[in-house]
């Protein structure tokens, strides 16, 4: 009898790098619908980030502070250039602009309460100021956006600072978007729109074009408020060096730079993943611009876009930011992508609601649908009850407090009595990309790619 070698039948499963399952899904979807994908949150691809930097703390050559007992100041002052009443915050971590419309009124109230308890600011969004957030926020930044939805002089006078939004990290060059299912009667009224319309905001301001006009526009906002309130200018990170310079030229007290990891409630995926530069590169360019103009310390810099933790905050500050703004991290603290929501002290499973959206906790980016399983990004009367303001306020406060403790822990280890004394010299990079973008030497070397001719 002949003996044959034993063979095993194996399926051929060689995956293509260029046409991986994500790309195949994308093409199949495009072919089925003829319409680009719209989703929430920020860039999901891996990018050079603050994770690629580490601190060189005190040792023999530098002297650390005692980690729990020695003073470490976190006070942060914004808007010292022209405003008669600069903003004074207890911590350098602020809550980024997110609209009522994208978020429920309960969420807006939670954010205001948490920010007030922690001595920081919260920010309105593309949909006007709600009573809930004004009432609960000690320090509220009022955004002036291209759409000017609900924008009015009374709210302007009630604001503590004004933020002229030129762009957003998730979609520089694009306007806001709120799909019809979230345009309920209250949202529609605040925005002067028909109920249920798929709202697409303008991407350019209606009454000015270019930096010279913006200078006059900022002057108008100052005249309107008798030069009291700090004026921020927020840009999505693209040509950050030039944009920051022009924002300073236009008379901003504070420049906000939002990197491409920044979130959104709804934008085309192609925008989220393919437009703008990473926060790490943007901070460096923004600080370069301020230093080039000799404005460092005179015009304050707020950095946002994918900042998640105390170490992220510490690294942003060390690179030269005066404060950070957080959006997505705050939503996650509220329960975004959690398996449960909390009602009357008890956890309830949200799995079925994720299922209904065709997703699961940890993967959900369905803010645009208005069917948020945990009641955060919704205008639905039933779903929004899944986030109760007292629970939300406590969780956001805890998150801010944790980050602030981490920040001071790192600052003390680096020997700083003030978190604003963290400096670039305290950092090294773990990857070539991060070293080049942040212009910080690769760990264990003095090499900064692209510098000194190398």
């Amino acid at each position, binding site marked *: 009898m002949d003996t044959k070698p034993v063979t095993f039948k194996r399926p051929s499963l060689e995956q293509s790098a260029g046409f991986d399952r994500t790309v195949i899904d994308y093409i199949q979807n495009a072919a089925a619908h003829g319409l680009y994908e719209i989703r929430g949150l920020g860039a999901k691809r891996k990018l050079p980030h603050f994770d690629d930097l580490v601190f060189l703390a005190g040792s023999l050559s530098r002297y650390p502070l005692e980690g729990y007992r020695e003073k470490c100041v976190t006070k942060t002052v914004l808007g010292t250039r022209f405003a008669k009443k600069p903003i004074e915050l207890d911590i350098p971590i602020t809550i980024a602009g997110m609209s009522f419309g994208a978020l429920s009124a309960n969420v807006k109230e939670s954010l205001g309460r948490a920010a007030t308890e922690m001595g920081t600011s919260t920010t309105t969004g593309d949909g006007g100021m709600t009573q809930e957030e004004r009432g609960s926020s000690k320090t509220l930044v009022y955004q002036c956006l291209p759409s000017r939805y609900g924008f009015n*002089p009374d709210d302007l006078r009630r604001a503590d600072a004004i933020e002229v939004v030129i762009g957003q990290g998730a979609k520089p060059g694009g306007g806001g978007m709120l799909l019809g299912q979230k345009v309920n009667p209250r949202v529609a009224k605040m925005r002067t729109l028909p109920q249920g319309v798929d709202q697409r905001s303008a991407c350019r301001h209606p009454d*000015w074009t270019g930096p010279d006009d913006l200078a006059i*526009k900022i002057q108008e906002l100052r005249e309107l408020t008798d030069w009291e309130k700090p004026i921020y200018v927020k840009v999505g990170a693209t040509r950050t060096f030039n944009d920051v310079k022009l924002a300073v030229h236009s008379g901003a007290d504070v420049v906000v730079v939002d990197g491409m990891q920044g979130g959104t409630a709804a934008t085309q995926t192609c925008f989220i993943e393919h437009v703008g530069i990473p926060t790490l590169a943007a901070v460096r360019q923004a600080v370069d611009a301020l230093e080039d103009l000799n404005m460092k310390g005179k015009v304050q810099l707020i950095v946002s876009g994918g900042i998640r933790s105390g170490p992220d905050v510490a690294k942003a500050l060390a690179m030269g930011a005066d404060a950070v703004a957080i959006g997505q991290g705050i939503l996650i603290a509220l329960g975004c992508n959690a398996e449960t929501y909390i009602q009357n002290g008890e956890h309830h499973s949200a799995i079925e609601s994720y299922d209904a959206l065709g997703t699961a906790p940890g993967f959900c980016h369905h803010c645009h649908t208005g069917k948020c399983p945990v009641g955060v990004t919704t205008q639905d009367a039933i779903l929004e009850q899944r986030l109760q303001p007292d629970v939300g306020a406590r969780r956001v406060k805890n998150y801010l407090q944790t980050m602030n403790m981490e920040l001071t822990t790192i600052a003390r280890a680096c020997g700083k009595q003030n978190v604003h004394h963290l400096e670039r010299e305290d950092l090294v990079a773990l990857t070539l990309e991060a070293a080049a973008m942040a212009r910080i030497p690769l760990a264990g070397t003095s090499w900064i790619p692209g510098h000194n001719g190398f």
Partner: protein
Amino acid sequence: MESLNFDLASSSLSDMNRFLHRDLADGDRRHVSVLNPDGAHNIAVGLNHPVTVEVHGHAGYYAAGMNKHATVVIHGSAGTGVAENMMSGTVHVKGFASNGAGATAHGGLLVIDGDAGLRCGISLKGGDIVVGGSVGSFSGFMAQAGRMVICGNAGDALGDSLYEAVIYIRGTAKSLGADAQFEDMTDADYAALAELLSKAGLDHDPKSFRRIASARSLYHWNADADQEY
């Protein structure tokens, strides 16, 4: 009634604006004259009282911006963004107006005796605008609510991406923007138009105007829509 004069040749704009914000009593109806405006930007912005402000000369950008309650008359021409984001009251430009006149106005009435530049009434949110002359291109862009009366002609893309605002035009539009369409005038339109014309001191026959409003075909995402709009 006591009247006040501010001569911008010798006093500061900020001092005048602050006075108009802070030193008027509620319901103050005084008459304020602004002399030598000389094209200054941001004249009489953020008013919040039913005063009457007369600007004797040309105004720069954002004159009477975000006006509430006040009547502002500009005896000259106005720069970009006159009466932008007005909430209520009346702003009357006796000369011409530059770009973005009445942009995002939520309420009130803006009257321009002469022509207006580009993007007149852009993102209008409930205010009324009457232009005695013609308007530039992209006027009424994304206008959400309110009414715009054009006694002359309009440039390209009039009423592009209109929401619920209505435009009345006496002359011709070089082109209509995406989703804007001519519609039949109703009795309600004639009545509204007659009232607006009379408030603006114009005696055109309402029958000589045509109505432009939104076809509402861009209200919802549509994969089959022409993406070049």
